[in-house]
């Protein structure tokens, strides 16, 4: 990503930074001033790329590894253990039975995660499935979307699930009986109230943060984001302690949850947080969430709305208040990333950004739309004009591409889902992301999604104009993401003076090509000059 030296054979590192990149000859000269450089040939047959930057993930990715993974795809844990994918509801139930049979404290809640019913079209998981695992303790299966969970009857009795009023959030069968599926925060609330396990506290613990960093490291990530955190008073201290530890293998950029307090207080809190920035921990931006998700039918869409006729989605904040926050942060010179999924929401967010910029002109504000999955070319064009960047949720193409074609968007609009090609064509600064733990954190996989636009059902979304090249995708997961975080002068490319953050790959992505991009093995990373080697193994 270094335009002056796009390819090199040698790289020299000093004091956590890159001293030089180029040929052995180029590098040699540095020894006069800096003393001898020891030649390390451990990776001489590997490919070194700038460390990958995950511009939209959540540290919550690290919290589930103490529980049991029951997802459809193989998934690699923080210790390199590969958890095999489970290909049917029966396989999931069998796995849970095995876990229950083998664990010591059989009365404690059994919690599993990563379950994705979108792959099981014949039927849905129900309470009877989980009752077959255990009837005398809580059994809870969290879905991959994080928006739904399944519970057994033990949980439902403990919660006293009652009334038919809220059938919208409690799935019921034809006879009105709760099936054990709970939507939205309700399910999580019920799970916490009945098990006494405070997932909220676990989600923000230092242990979770370390797990998160290790999962990210396995995939070549050297900087990741925790893209929305309310940062209650003093919470930065524990975070700082964890991240600044020498063996913490990653830089972390935390986005402060804008509407966790009133605009003026939020500005003050951000300024306080920024004062505690370090080399590895940054509080540089604010996140605002404006609508829900497409697959959850809670994204705000323009007419004609959802393909299956579902009612339009939800605003997560009043547009007027979104405008108030944008004005306050823009005035204070604080960058804002706005979550918008549906095209109506994208349009409103752009309106509000424009209003804020008219009130408080700020060249290079670099406000960014996150997800922004249904943006049209007209939206990208407007983003370019306003100086707004985009970070697209390219993993969606694979995980929910088929659902978007058949259920949520219909084939025509699904073609423009996460239109990276369109963004670049209109000149919008581009990053792409996983939104981990919503989908697996792995920038090479995300790049593969943006390059190939292939759904898990094997369908290609779009007509080719939405695809980007391997080079463009690699740029998006390094410099593109660095730019979105206003860190492009520090990280994202291998250049003299920048931080020595490197992804060590078994193969050269350009040689491997588009189709196999996702299959490249990550050997390890270097973060600030310190090497972290991956240790893969199978569960």
């Amino acid at each position, binding site marked *: 990503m270094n335009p002056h030296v796009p390819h090199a054979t040698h790289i020299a590192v000093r004091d956590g930074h890159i001293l030089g990149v180029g040929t052995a000859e180029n590098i040699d000269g540095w020894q006069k001033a800096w003393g001898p450089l020891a030649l390390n040939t451990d990776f001489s047959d590997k490919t070194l790329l700038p460390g990958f930057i995950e511009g939209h993930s959540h540290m919550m990715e690290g919290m589930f590894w103490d529980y049991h993974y029951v997802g459809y795809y193989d998934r690699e844990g923080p210790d390199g253990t590969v958890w095999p994918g489970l290909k049917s509801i029966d396989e999931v139930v069998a796995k849970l039975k095995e876990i229950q049979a083998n664990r010591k404290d059989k009365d404690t809640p059994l919690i599993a995660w990563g379950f994705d019913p979108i792959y099981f079209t014949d039927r849905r998981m129900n309470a009877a499935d989980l009752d077959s695992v255990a009837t005398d303790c809580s059994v809870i299966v969290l879905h991959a979307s994080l928006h739904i969970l399944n519970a057994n009857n033990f949980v439902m009795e*403990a*919660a*006293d*699930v*009652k*009334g038919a*009023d*809220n059938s*919208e*959030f*409690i799935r019921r069968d034809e006879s009105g009986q709760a099936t054990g599926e*709970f939507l*939205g*925060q*309700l*399910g*999580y*609330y*019920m799970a*916490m*109230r009945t098990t006494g396990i*405070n997932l*909220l506290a676990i989600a923000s613990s230092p242990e979770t943060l370390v797990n998160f960093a290790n999962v990210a490291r396995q995939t070549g990530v050297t900087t990741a984001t925790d893209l929305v955190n*309310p940062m*209650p*008073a003093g919470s930065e201290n524990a975070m700082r302690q964890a991240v600044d530890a020498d063996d913490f293998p990653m830089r972390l950029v935390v986005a402060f*949850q804008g*509407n*966790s*307090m*009133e605009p003026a207080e939020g500005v003050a809190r951000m300024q306080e947080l920024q004062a505690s920035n370090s080399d590895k921990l940054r509080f540089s931006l604010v996140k605002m*969430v404006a609508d829900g998700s497409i697959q959850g039918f809670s994204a*705000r869409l323009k007419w004609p709305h959802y393909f299956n006729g579902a*009612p*339009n989605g*939800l*605003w*997560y*904040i*009043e*547009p*007027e*208040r979104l405008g108030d926050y944008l004005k306050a942060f823009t005035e204070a010179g604080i960058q804002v990333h706005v979550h918008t999924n549906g095209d*109506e929401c994208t349009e*409103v967010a752009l309106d509000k950004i424009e209003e804020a910029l008219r009130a408080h002109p700020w060249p290079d504000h670099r406000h960014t739309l996150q997800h922004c999955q249904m943006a049209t070319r007209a939206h990208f064009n407007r983003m370019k004009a306003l100086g707004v960047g985009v970070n697209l949720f390219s993993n969606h193409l694979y995980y929910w591409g088929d659902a978007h074609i058949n259920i949520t968007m219909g084939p025509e609009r699904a073609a423009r889902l996460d239109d990276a090609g369109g963004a670049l064509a209109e000149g919008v600064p581009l990053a792409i992301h996983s939104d981990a733990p919503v989908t697996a954190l792995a920038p090479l996989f995300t790049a593969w999604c943006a390059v190939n636009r292939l759904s898990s059902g094997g369908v290609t979304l779009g007509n080719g104009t939405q695809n980007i090249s391997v080079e463009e995708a690699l740029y998006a997961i390094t410099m593109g993401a660095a730019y979105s975080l206003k860190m492009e002068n520090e990280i994202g490319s291998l250049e003299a003076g920048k931080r020595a953050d490197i992804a060590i790959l078994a193969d050269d992505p350009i040689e491997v090509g588009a189709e196999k991009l996702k299959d490249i093995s990550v050997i390890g990373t270097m973060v600030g000059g310190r090497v972290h080697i991956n240790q893969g193994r199978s569960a």
Partner: protein
Amino acid sequence: MTHIGTVPLTIISGFLGSGKTSLLNHLLTQSEGRRITAMVNDFGALNIDAELIAAKHGNQIALANGCVCCSIGDDLMRSFMEVMQQSPLPDHIIIEASGVAEPSRIAGFASVDRQLRLDGIVTLVDAGAHNVHSNDPYLADNYAKQIEAAHLLLISKPDLADAATLENLENELAAQKPNVPIAQMTHGVLPINLVLGLNAAEEIRQPHEVIEHGFMQWATHLPPQPRAALITKLENLRPHVLRAKAVLQDDEGAYVLHLAGGRISTEPHEGKASGHFVLIGKPQMPDAAALEKIFRQNEAA
């Protein structure tokens, strides 16, 4: 089902500027002995008199009258977790929903928590802004959902609208929600039991009639009477009767009757029926003498 040990939950819904904060301020400061915990979007806007504030830490303000106010900070689940882990639990929980919240979604919390029960959803409709809100290009669907979910519709800022506008608005709302009580509210001021429920267990020494903030409250003792007859009498008082509660006896045993959110329900009462009967309604409701006549008719039946 009895509700012993459960905390009633009231959700105050309505658009930005519809008067939610004024109403909340009134409920918190005139709490009449209830220890209310209110979850709000913004403390600052509440503007509670400094002398009423007993303590303030982090995202909580404790009032001298036992009420607590905590900021939701865009994380309702976290707020519920914090509030429901308190000991003792509050007497009543009020949520000031955001202007775009779907109150029925918030109500869902009560259906998965043994210790919570939904008392009602109160939706505020700004008399002067109704036409703007119901035609908002981005929010009209949301506005309709808030009205649809209501168990009590309060028309706010009636003083800023002319009589014809108010009448049209009431008619429109009544057509949309035929059984839901509709009342007007100025500056958030109304009898708090209209919003938070009647407490028939409160000692009623003698029958009395109170006019408070333009609403009429009538309390009395009634002799045993069949629940079906009582229900019919209440039905006949619609739409002027807004809330009622009775603890009475009939041939089947002691029962509690509630009229709330336009719905009349009865449930068995454990123990002896006190005969308490409380009614709250609009000024158009028949006066105490007329009510006496209605509710004592055929009392031997």
